């Protein structure tokens, strides 16, 4: 009997393949990944077979170093699986368990193969633990990297979506601002607004800051610059959506907004209509007026 862990492990995995595969499939079935309905059993079994086959080949090629060349194709397969799981919305536990649930079947098989030879059993278990732990960790690393990719993409999408300029009426634009106004975003906001003023031949632009949680001096400065630039283009600005607590804070800060401002967008729109010589009236009243 040999006491080289790698050899014991490789031999057991090759000889006891069917039993290990059955036990691994059973362990995965008991896990939560199937119950969540994100993956079909047939698909899971294909993955199990592919991973196990590559693990067997990698172990046969010698060595326990999961970062070595012999394990390259296995690492690829696991990375693919882990990446697709991150995108499908699996929990980290489910993803890691895919690898870690292979431990028990292999330990059992080692026990069967070693019989009473405790030295070879210990060596085999240590070898299996070393390889599987490393593979599990690699799986998690890929999983996290894929998650971060998703988050980064969402961040970009939010940045692109967050600054619309909407036309309320002929010559009246509204710019609802939402979220934190940093320098990069205010640049985009100003650009969009100025372009829209040209395109729509707008006379009045309403900047609504209801969705801006904190108005500090930097935000105020950005607002004032935007207003000044719009003025140069021939459009007047009205700032709306200044909540009472924001108004108090701005007074304490000593910021003076030298622009027409209104508490809400509706009031600002009414002002804009009046300035452009329009008025909104009830239908009934309009009919009576005409008589």
């Amino acid at each position, binding site marked *: 009997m040999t006491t080289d862990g790698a050899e014991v492990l490789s031999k057991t995995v090759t000889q006891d393949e069917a039993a290990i595969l059955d036990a691994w499939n059973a362990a995965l079935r008991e896990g939560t990944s199937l119950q969540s309905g994100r993956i079909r059993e047939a698909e899971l079994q294909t993955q199990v077979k592919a991973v196990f086959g590559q693990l067997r080949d990698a172990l046969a090629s010698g060595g326990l170093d999961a970062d070595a060349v012999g394990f390259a194709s296995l690492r690829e397969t696991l990375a693919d699986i882990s990446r697709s799981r991150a995108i499908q919305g699996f929990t980290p536990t489910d993803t890691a368990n895919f690898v870690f649930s292979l431990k028990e079947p292999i330990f059992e098989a080692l026990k069967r193969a070693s019989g009473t030879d405790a030295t070879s059993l210990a060596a085999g278990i240590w070898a299996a633990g070393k390889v599987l732990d490393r593979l599990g960790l690699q799986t998690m690393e890929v999983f996290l990297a894929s998650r971060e990719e998703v988050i980064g993409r969402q961040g970009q999408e939010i940045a692109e979506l967050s600054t619309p300029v909407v036309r309320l009426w002929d010559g009246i634009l509204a710019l609802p601002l939402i979220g934190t106004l*940093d320098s990069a975003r205010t640049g985009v906001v100003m650009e969009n607004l100025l372009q829209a003023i040209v395109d729509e031949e707008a006379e009045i632009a309403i900047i609504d800051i209801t969705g801006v*949680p904190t108005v*500090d*001096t930097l935000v105020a400065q950005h607002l004032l610059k935007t207003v000044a630039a719009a003025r140069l283009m021939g459009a007047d600005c009205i700032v709306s959506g200044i909540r009472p607590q924001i108004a*108090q*804070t701005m007074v*304490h*800060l*000593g910021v003076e907004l030298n622009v027409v401002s209104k508490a809400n967008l509706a009031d600002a729109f009414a002002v804009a209509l009046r300035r452009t010589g329009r008025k909104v009236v009830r239908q009934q009243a309009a009919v009576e007026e005409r008589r």
Partner: protein
Amino acid sequence: MTVTKTETLPVRSGDDVVRVRQRVRALAVEIGLGLVDQTKIVTAASELARNTLDYGGGGDVLLEIVHAGMRKGLRLTFEDQGPGITDIEQAMTDCFTTGRGMGLGLGGAKRLSNEFHI
């Protein structure tokens, strides 16, 4: 005056300023400040965090919940290893700035707080 809760946050990037604001708001809600006082301290924190970042080259902020008798409060300590302020009185003057801001940050933050020391 007793301190019941402390935490430290880094101020090293624009994102950190946002995080400081969110944390300060959460603590202000926790000690039961009204909406106006919440907004005041969050705005003051935002001013000082940005000063720490822009003029101090980044640093840390220490957030503390303090009790004095029945009163509860929030103490924020911003610390950086920047070049320092040569003339504090001048820096506190409104509309004075060495950068490109409005020059209202320090003075404004003082007016938004109950106690303020540099």
